[in-house]
Every structure is written in C-alpha cells, then in structure tokens.
C-alpha cells in the first residue's frame, strides 16, 4: 500500500454568489501517512474552502479527490457520509459538541453510528481517549457545561474514536488561550507521530504552523 493517504488533483472551485469567483484554482496536493500539515494563508485565500473540499463535506468542485485509494469525485451523499464516519475526524474552531449530551456520549456517537463495535467496547475506548486527553473526570457532565479548552479536547477525542486516517482541523486552536493552544497542539502532534494519523489543520497562528511537519501556503486559490 502506498504511503499517500490523500491525493487531490487540479481541484477548482467557483463561488457563484454574489459574483462568480474562483476560490480554488487547480490545486494539487498529496498528504502522506502520519503527516501533520498546516494550511496557512490570508483571509479569503481559499484555505478553508480547500479543507472542506478535501473533507468531502463540499462536493461542488471540479477535479479529482482520492482518499485511501478511493475516488470520491462521484460518490453520493450517503456514501460520503459513511466514508467520513470511517476515515475522517473533524475538529472545528468552535468545538461543535452536541450540548444536550454528556461528554462521553459526544465522543461515542460517531463510533455507535459506525456500528461495528459493541457499546461497551466503544465506551471503554471513549474513556481511554478522554483519559489520554486529560478530561476523563468530566465524562459524565453535559458537554455545554465544559470550558472552551476542555470542549476542544473532547472534540479531539470524538474525532479520534473511529481511528480515522485523517483528522481535519479548521482553526482548532483559534478560539483558545495560549495554555490550551499548547495542550491541543501537543495532542495533535502526538496523534500524528504516535498513531500515524495524518492531520490537516487550517490555522492563522504562525507559531502553530511553524511547528508542523509541513506548511502549505495558499494565495488566491493556489498553493505556493
């Protein structure tokens, strides 16, 4: 099996609203197994747009996208959803936990959705992830009652529960203080080096970008 987890070939994307605008212009990108890549660039350069295309959430683009050897260009919404469930973990800037559920439930939901492990197994895994991320003592609280840093750690645990190939982060530390930024970065670092999972993170933070394996800089919809 090749070492390349994600391969994007000449990805082009237009926004039609309010005026036709080329957000991505023939982007080519390869991500290797275990690579920790930072996507950087000015506001509006298309880095978030690229992330959502790569994450399969956005399907309105031209070009070719392969993840784990599977071509995703022509897959339908249901297949893509199941593919995301299995292979892609998400960490967003604003945590996006389900507020009515407990921390533990939040982490377990993607694995229960996948449905290949028993509930007990999933719970054990979720607990060990939470322990690893230092928030196990919060596991039975409602997600909405946690602090920002804690929520982001729970979000990371949720992203990892299905052992994805790639974790995609949209400014994962963008909303955190410097202490929590450090903690979250270290966790992501560990994931890529110890568990061999690739990470693509959009960031504004030059400090964050500097410490990644690879920095992908974008200008006007192109990688430079």
């Amino acid at each position, binding site marked *: 099996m090749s070492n390349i987890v994600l391969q994007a070939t000449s990805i082009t994307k237009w926004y039609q609203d309010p005026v036709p605008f080329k957000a991505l212009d023939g982007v080519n990108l390869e991500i290797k197994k275990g690579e920790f890549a930072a996507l950087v660039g000015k506001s509006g350069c298309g880095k978030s747009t690229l992330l*959502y295309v790569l994450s399969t959430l956005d399907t309105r683009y031209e070009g070719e996208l392969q993840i784990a050897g599977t071509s995703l260009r022509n897959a339908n919404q249901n297949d893509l*959803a199941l593919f995301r*469930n299995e292979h892609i973990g*998400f960490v967003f*800037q604003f945590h*996006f936990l389900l507020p*009515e559920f407990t921390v533990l439930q939040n982490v377990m939901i993607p694995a229960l959705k996948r449905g290949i492990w028993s509930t007990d197994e999933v719970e054990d895994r979720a607990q060990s992830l939470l322990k690893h991320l230092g928030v196990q003592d919060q596991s039975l609280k409602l997600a909405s009652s946690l602090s920002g840093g804690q929520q982001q750690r729970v979000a990371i645990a949720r992203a990892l529960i299905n052992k994805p190939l790639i974790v995609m982060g*949209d400014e994962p530390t963008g909303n955190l203080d410097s202490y929590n930024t450090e903690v979250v970065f270290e966790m992501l670092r560990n994931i890529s080096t110890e568990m061999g999972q690739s990470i693509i993170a959009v960031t504004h933070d030059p400090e964050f970008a500097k410490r990644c394996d690879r920095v992908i800089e974008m200008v006007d919809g192109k990688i430079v």
Partner: protein
Amino acid sequence: MKQAWSIARTHLLAKPKQTLVAMLGVTFGIGMFIALVSLMSGLNQFTEEVSMTSSPDIRLYMDPTIQPPPLVASEYPQALVQVDHVRPATKRINLKDGLQTIAQLMAREGVKGVAPLVSSQVFFNYGAMQLNGVVMGIDVEQEERLFNLSSHLLAGNLSSLKATPNGILMGSGLARKLNLKPGDRVSVTTPDGARFSLKVVGIFQLGLGTLDNVRSYANLSAVQKLLQVDPSYITDINVKLHNNQDAKDLAKSWSKEFSCSADDWETANATFLTGNIIRNVITYAVSLTLLLVAGFGIYNILNMTIHNKMKDIAILKAIGYTPIDVRNIFMLQSIAIGLLGSLLGLVLGFILSWLISLAPFDGGDVVSLDHFPVNFSIKYYGIGMVFGVVTTAVAGLTPSRKAGNVDPIEIIRGQ
C-alpha cells in the same frame, strides 16, 4: 435507527415543555375526536335501534289515498283522460288475501319472520278523558319474534295479553295521559262508532314519543271483533329479513307482486337516517379540523427545533450521519410526539365520553332518554390512534426532510 432514536429522545427530553405542548395539541385533537364520535355514534345507534324495533324491514299495506285510474282511461288507453276533483270512493283498507300473502312470504328465502297486523284509529275513554290513538291487533308470538316487544314493557307481560282475549297494552305516553294502570278498564271507540271495553294488561315504551303517545297493542282477534270484520281481515303485514340491506329491492318487487304498497325501513325512517349522516359528517369535519391544527402545531415546533439545531445537524453530518439518518432523527421525534399524544388523547377521550355518558339529558316526550347515549366502541379508539400518528408523521415529513438536506458547510463556516 437505534442511534437516531437515542438522539431524538435526547432532543425531546432536553425541551420537555415544548415537547409537552406539541403532545397536548395532538392529545386534545384525538380526545375531542373520540368524545365526539362516541357521542354521535351513540346517538346514531340509539335512534337506529329505536327505529328498527318500531318499524319492520318491509311493511305491506293498502294505501287508500291511491285512487284507481278513472274507468274511461281503461276503455281508451291511447286517449288523454282528465277528470277533475274526483271524490274518493269507498275503499277497503285491508290487504286482499292477507292470510295467503303471509303464508307465501313465510316460505320465501331471506325472510326471517312475518307478522300480521290489524290497525285502526280509535278513541280511548277513561273517566271524562278522551284521547285519540291507534290500536294494533297483533299476533303476539310473531310480534315478539320480530320486534322483541317484551323488552319494551314497563309493566305487565306478554303472556297475560295472550291469556286475556280483551286485554290491551298501552303506550307509556297514552297511559300517562289517561292515568291508566294495569288492571284498569279502558273504553275504546272505533271510527264506525262501535264501543268496547278492554282491560289494560301492560304498559310499553318503544322510546319514541310519536309512538308511545298514540299506540296500543291488542290481540288480533280482539281488534277484528272491534272492527266487526272477519278473521281474514288484515291491514298490514310486517316482514323482517335476515339481511335488511335487501329491503329496498324486495319492497319494490313485492309491491307489484301482491298489488299493494310496500315501504322499506330506509324509506320509513328517512328522517332518522339523514340525521345519522349529518352527525357523521359533522364529527369527522370537526375532528379533522382539530387534528389539522395539531398537525400545524407540530410542524411549527419541529421547524423551530430544527432551526435551533442547525449546528447539531451540521456536526452530525460531518461525523458521518447521512441525510436519511438526520431525517430519521426528526421524523422519530414527530412520531414519538404523535404516539404519546395520541395515547394520552385516547385516555382523555375515554374520560370525556365517560363524563358525557353521566350527564343527565331529558329527551322529553320525543325520545325516552335520561342520559346521553355514548358508544364506547374500541373501533373509534383505533381510528383515533391511526389519525393521530398519521397526522403527526405527515406534519413532520417536510421539516425533517429539510433537516436532512441542510448543507453543513454553510453552518460550520458561517460561525
């Protein structure tokens, strides 16, 4: 599906007040439907029973108002004959060959029973009181078999009528007005002026004022004697069929066959049956309106929930929930509201109908009722349940599909 349900349940329980309000909408709709339909069908059943017991499936009789065509017309069938202001000729009101007709009908297939009847307008005298009414000469055994007369008796019994040749059963209204009690003698005057004294052996109540205020029953032979006619004199033949739906067609063919008039029960009770239809229409119209309102309530609440849950929907889709999974989450919420709301509605409906059945209602002289008749048929509870669940499912469909088609990027990037 299990996952979808656990999320749906959490959503419902997270906003208990909102869930309760949505449920109560359905509960109220179903409850009112059941209360209404129980009362209406109770009334229908009551009137049907009353009209069924008092009228036969088919009644054969001579209609004296139907005049034979003028003699001239039979001589010149092609001619236009016009005779103004014909004076009614003396005409018998008994059936021709009544006894033979009865014998023939008895042998017919589909005929459950045949009862002869001699009826006449009479005056009842008791003390100074004089009231007009009808005396009906009946074959006690046949009448009991067809109309279950004994179940309508308030006092006395049928065997005493049979044993007393000059006995008479009085309608409850008639007896009350004349202040008669069993054992009293009442004098009866026929239109021809003959006067007899009959002994009251019982009092009956058919349930309809129009009958109980005028009708009385005596033995066939007694009335024939009263009218000074021979034992073959019969004015009406009442027929009960095994299947009363055949009545309309049979009435037509018998009318020709025996050259007399024949009324089926539907024609005879047309006013009652029209009332039934109108009551049914009102019941279903009101109930559907109530359910529609409840459905709109659910539609609104679900739309609001989905609007508030956009972030959750986006995240669920990002972590691998398909549009169908998301749709199911909200459909399940709406069906859960429908199921629970309908179940509560059944309870509410039962309590309401039970309270209605306790409410005193004086039917006055028209019908003999002291309480509202309520039909506690399980059938209506089944219909109510189906109505409730279907309405909520339909109401939930559009919002749920909308939720399934939410574009997660817009939500996630819009933050």
